[in-house]
């Protein structure tokens, strides 16, 4: 009798297990849907499409290997990217993010490039209890309180970008500083950080002007900046601003001992094409990966591998920083799916938090705060130094841990 009972129990348990196994296999989706937006036109088109290409690049590679490993289902599942064009418009982006969440029922949402197009996704993600993977929306305002539904994965908050720059200027005893910055969150928060850092060491900028975000004409402004005789002139803008600024600087015939702009470090090729190597020489920027190399990574490809692989699938083109940022968002999502025991939004968020501080990728150390902010991946300072063959070499001059050479300061005239 007892034996019979035991057998029955075993049979039932076995049946239950099989059923459970069948159920879990049945609930594993045939594809993992990743929803994202890109800007086909408008102000953010260049950077947004670069990020989208990076994400596509990741998806293609993952699918070539049979898909992404999802721990909850213990198998590889192919990835499908669902993407819409928001035309750089926040209202269009709002409806399309919602479309991704409510209609396409994507498994993960990746926000479009930059803070402006990310901003509208944050409340939506929270409302629908979706984890928002945020590659490049870095406004400090997003990360004020603890959240389970936001993770900035590829760039640090823009407010911390200029910390190394401030330290470097202090180290070089450069005290007369001029700042020109765009009237937007991205540039304004960097200018605020710089000014706050300078204040700590008793330095007040000798020239400090905000300009409209759409400013394209710096000739007259440069002239007024020159009248204040700064040792260092720092222009914080978007890509078109930096192009216009550097072009104006070159054609004005003015000379400053130290010039800093943001985007040559992220889009060097594009900048060289637009403003010429001549206009960039001896200027400084934040050198972003792949311009600076991370050789020892423990997730995904290292910088050299990434550059080579990218070239193979993009007709030999060199990837830029935002490409790397899109790819980085992909590999972190994959890692989260591969480690989270449950295929849920909260599970994946927890996995992203658990990885924090333990992982280095193509864009550097990854460190996620409970508020969703990215604390790793500090950007160093580099100078573009002309070589004998006329090319520009990116020399990292600060901090010492990344240093590849000494700054040439003041920059030679002419």
């Amino acid at each position, binding site marked *: 009798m007892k034996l019979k009972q035991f057998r029955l129990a075993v049979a039932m348990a076995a049946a239950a297990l099989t059923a459970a196994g069948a159920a879990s296999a049945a609930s594993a989706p045939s594809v993992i849907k990743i929803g994202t937006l890109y800007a086909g036109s408008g102000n953010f088109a260049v950077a947004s499409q670069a990020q989208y290409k990076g994400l596509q690049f990741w998806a293609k590679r993952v699918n070539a290997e049979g898909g992404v490993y999802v721990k909850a289902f213990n198998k590889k599942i192919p990835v499908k990217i669902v993407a819409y064009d928001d035309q750089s418009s926040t209202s269009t982006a709002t409806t399309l993010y919602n479309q991704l969440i409510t209609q396409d029922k994507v498994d993960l949402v990746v926000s479009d490039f930059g803070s402006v197009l990310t901003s509208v996704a944050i409340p939506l993600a929270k409302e629908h209890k979706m984890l928002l993977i945020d590659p490049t929306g870095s406004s400090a305002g997003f990360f004020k309180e603890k959240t389970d539904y936001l993770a900035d994965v590829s760039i640090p908050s823009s407010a911390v970008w200029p910390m190394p720059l401030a330290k470097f200027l202090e180290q070089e005893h450069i005290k007369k500083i001029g700042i020109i910055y765009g009237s937007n969150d991205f540039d304004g928060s960097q200018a605020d950080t710089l000014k706050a850092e300078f204040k700590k060491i008793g330095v007040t900028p000798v020239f400090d002007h905000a*300009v409209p975000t759409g400013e394209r004409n710096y000739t007259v402004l440069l002239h007024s900046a020159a009248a204040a005789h700064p040792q260092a002139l720092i222009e914080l803008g978007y890509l078109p601003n930096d192009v216009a600024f550097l072009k104006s600087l070159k054609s004005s015939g003015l000379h400053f001992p130290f010039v800093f702009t943001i985007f040559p470090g992220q889009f060097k090729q594009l900048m060289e094409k637009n403003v010429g190597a001549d206009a960039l020489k001896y200027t400084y920027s934040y050198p972003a990966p792949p311009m600076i190399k991370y050789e020892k990574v423990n997730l995904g490809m290292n910088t050299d591998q990434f550059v080579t692989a990218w070239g193979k699938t993009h007709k030999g083109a060199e990837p830029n920083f935002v490409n790397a940022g899109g790819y980085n968002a992909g590999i972190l999502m994959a890692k989260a799916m591969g480690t989270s025991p449950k295929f849920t939004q909260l599970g994946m968020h927890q996995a992203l938090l658990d990885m924090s501080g333990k992982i280095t990728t193509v864009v550097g150390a990854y460190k996620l705060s409970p508020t969703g902010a990215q604390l790793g991946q500090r950007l160093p300072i580099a100078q573009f130094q002309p070589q004998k063959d006329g090319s520009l070499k990116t020399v990292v001059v600060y901090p010492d841990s990344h240093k590849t050479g000494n700054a040439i300061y003041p920059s030679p005239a002419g």
Partner: protein
Amino acid sequence: MQALLEYAIVGGVLYGIFFGLVAVGLNLIFGVMRIINLAHGEFVILGGFGAYWVSHSLGLNPLWGLPLAALGAVVIGFPLYYAVVPGLQRSRDPEMLSFILFFGLAQIIDAIISLGFGPDQRSLPDEALGGGTISVLGQAFPDSWWVAAGVSVLAILGLWLYLTRTRLGFATRAIMANRDEAYATGISVDKVSAIAFIIGLALAGAAGVFVPYLQGSVGPGIGNSLTTTSFAILIIGSLGNPVGTLFGGLVFGVGSMLMQTFYASWSDLVPYVLLVVIVLVRPQGLFGKAVRHA
């Protein structure tokens, strides 16, 4: 301080003259056809991409973009005029209807540029227009600014001569004054308007050639701001009068540069504040005849 002031004024004059050229084509089309060409900025951008194309693909001096702009204006403008303008004129409120139509057209042009050239900004080499600087009153400005201002003055002067010294020009002005009367006096309104339309587009395209020099680069997506600034300038000047537009451009240019020198973050306000003040104080513009009613 005085040096800064002088520099801002000389720079503003050059910049403003160039913006006179940017706006003058819009003025002509608006004045003659009462069409609100919301795609004006896009035509300027097309001119910029044309110059980029002759410079990069053909290896020619970007100034060859000027004849290309004229050619492009004929090729695009002639069919476009006959496809849309006569129909608009027959509608109840052509001015406002043209607003939507040209908004749609702007979308199309923007999309085509983005699909064809990609979203990147494009620049042109400084050396092509000299690459040095020229000083006036001790204020050095890049050669390209002087070339742009020179071409702008010539183009606007040419338009003025056309309007005041040729028979077609007389007819054009008659249509500007009163379209119905012009019909009645036997002017072939459509032909004259079509020519004005083409000239307007050509001038926009010609301005575009210099956009990469005065604005650093040209790319899809800057059309809107070019269009709104142009509207401001043409109203500051006055409708129908190219010399007025040149003057409107000067006021805009000098105002913006002075503002940029002393209160940079507010410099965007200049064209709009000027516009509102001027239309309220002198609605006909600085150079025009009265138009207000009620």
